[in-house]
């Protein structure tokens, strides 16, 4: 009898444990209200948004709101979670951050997100942000994302390598080199002739993406039709970049790979397309031993461009969409964005924030005390109107065309690689 009663005890304990874990599971996912009647809002971000101090500040000002932050390390994982839970129909946070590269895919499911023009505070209009930023989060009149940060493009270059090749190296002097893509590749040719084993840029894909994103039409036209095989601008960009690769201008380093990191240390290339956040990457990878050798200038071939930046969206799954939109609007207000910028360097996308002294006075010691805040604020105004994007735009850029250009760099013929790219794009868009 004693042995039996102990067995029943075990069974009971197991049942209790199961019930307890089920209870834990359900309290985590079905948010809404807390035990003391507060509205609970969850905010899902990735990487660094600089909201650590802002969220408690909001709670203090709104005693009826409790904010729960859900932070994912990598953007990839965050968005995979986002898409899976859109599909599942539950489990999303009240506010979900979306990165620019994934925005087209999110916009293709725009009906799963609230139109912030309808539920957001009335005084928050798309003109709070740079026009191209708000435009890119709008589909069929539905404005689904408040802009957080952006990544305006400028050009970074190695002064010592420019000097060795007999090119001008001061920020004003290099502007002629970075005037157009033609002048850029021509200077690359001149550079190659003088230096031999050094390359002009890090990777063909890094240049090509910037070129394509400047075009009026990229991979898709305004009616969501894939135009990869018929868009003459795309083909002309492709031809220019692959011609430069053929002349040895590319260091053939895959961006963000270990070899690319080493390439910074070894001074393998002389120029780099540089969104605002790239300065930190350059500084980290090139290291203190190369301090003062890198410079940045407020010029970018054929105008400007943007790489990166995010949005805050309110999915329709949210139980408190109005309150969530209010919080998102507050977080993306110019004053708050400047605080986030000071904390984590997320470059503001709000028109008013671009005139903030905290931004304009920012300098970078690594880049020779350049006033980088003012420089990138200037570059942000040069970004052309938002380009039409289709659901597979991100995949076509990152997976299809970047791979095809890498193939060219590794010796595949330009025509075969183009064929690979077009077929890959058609498959991705299917």
């Amino acid at each position, binding site marked *: 009898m004693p042995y039996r009663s102990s067995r029943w005890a075990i069974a009971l304990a197991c049942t209790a444990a199961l019930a307890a874990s089920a209870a834990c599971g359900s309290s985590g996912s079905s948010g809404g209200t807390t035990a003391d009647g507060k509205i609970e809002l969850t905010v899902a971000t990735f990487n660094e948004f600089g909201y650590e101090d802002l969220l408690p500040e909001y709670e203090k000002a709104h005693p009826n709101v409790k904010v729960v932050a859900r932070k994912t390390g990598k953007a990839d994982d965050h968005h995979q979670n986002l898409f899976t839970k859109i*599909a599942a129909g539950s489990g999303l946070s009240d506010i979900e951050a979306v990165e620019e590269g994934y925005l087209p895919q999110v916009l293709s499911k725009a009906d799963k997100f609230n139109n912030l023009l309808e539920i957001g505070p009335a005084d928050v209009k798309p003109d709070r942000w740079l026009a191209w930023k708000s435009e890119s989060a709008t589909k069929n009149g539905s404005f689904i994302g408040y802009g957080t940060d952006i990544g305006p493009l400028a050009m970074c270059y190695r002064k010592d390598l420019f000097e060795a090749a007999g090119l001008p190296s001061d920020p004003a002097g290099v502007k002629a080199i970075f005037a157009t893509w033609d002048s850029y590749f021509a200077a690359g040719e001149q550079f190659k002739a003088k230096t031999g084993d050094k390359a002009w840029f890090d990777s063909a894909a890094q240049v090509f993406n910037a070129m394509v994103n400047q075009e009026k039409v990229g991979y898709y036209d305004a009616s969501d039709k894939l135009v990869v095989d018929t868009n003459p601008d795309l083909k002309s960009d492709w031809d220019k970049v692959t011609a430069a690769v053929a002349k040895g201008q590319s260091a053939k380093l895959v961006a963000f790979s*270990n070899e690319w990191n080493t*390439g910074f240390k070894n001074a393998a290339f002389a120029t780099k397309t540089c969104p605002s956040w790239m300065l930190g990457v350059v500084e980290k990878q090139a290291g203190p031993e190369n301090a003062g050798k890198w410079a940045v200038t407020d010029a970018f071939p054929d105008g400007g461009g943007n790489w990166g930046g995010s949005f805050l969206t309110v999915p329709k799954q949210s139980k408190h969409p109005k309150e969530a939109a209010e919080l998102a609007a507050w977080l993306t207000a110019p004053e708050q964005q400047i605080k986030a910028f000071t904390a984590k360097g997320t470059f503001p996308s709000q028109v008013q924030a671009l005139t903030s002294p905290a931004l304009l006075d920012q300098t970078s010691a690594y880049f020779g005390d350049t006033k980088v805040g003012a420089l990138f604020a200037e570059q942000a105004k040069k970004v052309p109107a938002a380009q039409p994007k289709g659901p597979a735009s991100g995949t076509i850029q990152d997976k299809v065309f970047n791979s095809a250009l890498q193939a060219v760099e590794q010796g595949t013929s330009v025509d075969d690689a183009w064929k690979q790219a077009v077929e890959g794009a058609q498959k991705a868009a299917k």
Partner: protein
Amino acid sequence: MTADLTEVPSGRGVEPRPPVRREPPEEHPKLPLRDRLTRLDVKFTPYLFIAPFFVLFAVIGLFPLLYTGYVSLFDWELGGDEHPFVGLGNYTALLADDQFWNALFNTVSIFVLSSVPQMITAVLLAALLNTALRARTAWRMGVLLPYVASLVALAIIFSNLFGKQYGLINTFLEGVGLSPVDWQGNWFASHVAIATMVNWRWTGYNALIVLAAMQAIPREVHEAALVDGAGAVRRFVSITLPLLRPTIIFVVITSTIGGLQIFTEPKLFDPAGGSGGGFSHQYQTVVLYLYQAGFQDFDLGYASAMAWILFLVVLVIAAANFFLTRRIASTGESE
């Protein structure tokens, strides 16, 4: 007085009758609750004890397996509003997909490049470890170390070693006057690089399994052969190998199942970090393509069809390996 006796025949010459079962059974004299519980206990407790495995297997093994088969019959886009039924459409599309055949070829190629040298080395290594070495336990533990190390760390370190421009291996090759190898771009070189990672991790592990089997071989057989004048090589080929047969079959089948599902190594080998398996899919394996279809393109129906085809391929190759190894390991002797 005797009427009762004649009515109930008994005694010699009377067929014994089985006792009549009384109906209905409820009239059975009631056993105490405790005894009934004991009966239930004896009857069902064993099932209860093995149930956790089967319940778990049904939930996380069998159900997904069957549901994958169901999903594979639909054009099932993750997050799509509707999932139209397409029958075997995903399967026919898959069989006409060049990228799938390329992935299958890569998988088999990497599998062969890893399994064959790995099995041979493992058996030889086990034979070495079975000899009278100094610090035997340390050596035996040592071969297991690569298996203990994290797979991700391993893949990252090997990707660095096999770097094209700044990798250690190419630096070494150039140092001894050879031309550097494009470990990324060249399909064969990339397969060798990935197979190296697999071999590094699994050879020692398999060697230990083989070693255990080797130690179970009766000493008398070896001694008898020694008396008959058989050399070390002859004894290894004629005694050790045939007696290792069941173990080698086991190792070959598990490494077939694992090898055909290879994912982490090629995934982390790609410097671009995607699931394409190189810029022209030169080392994309089937599972990597499955992952790409399912979680990059969100085409779950297609990915499910691929999972089922892979399942069948694994079955076929494991069966082929079983018969092949049985032949080889028996060295032609009939039993």
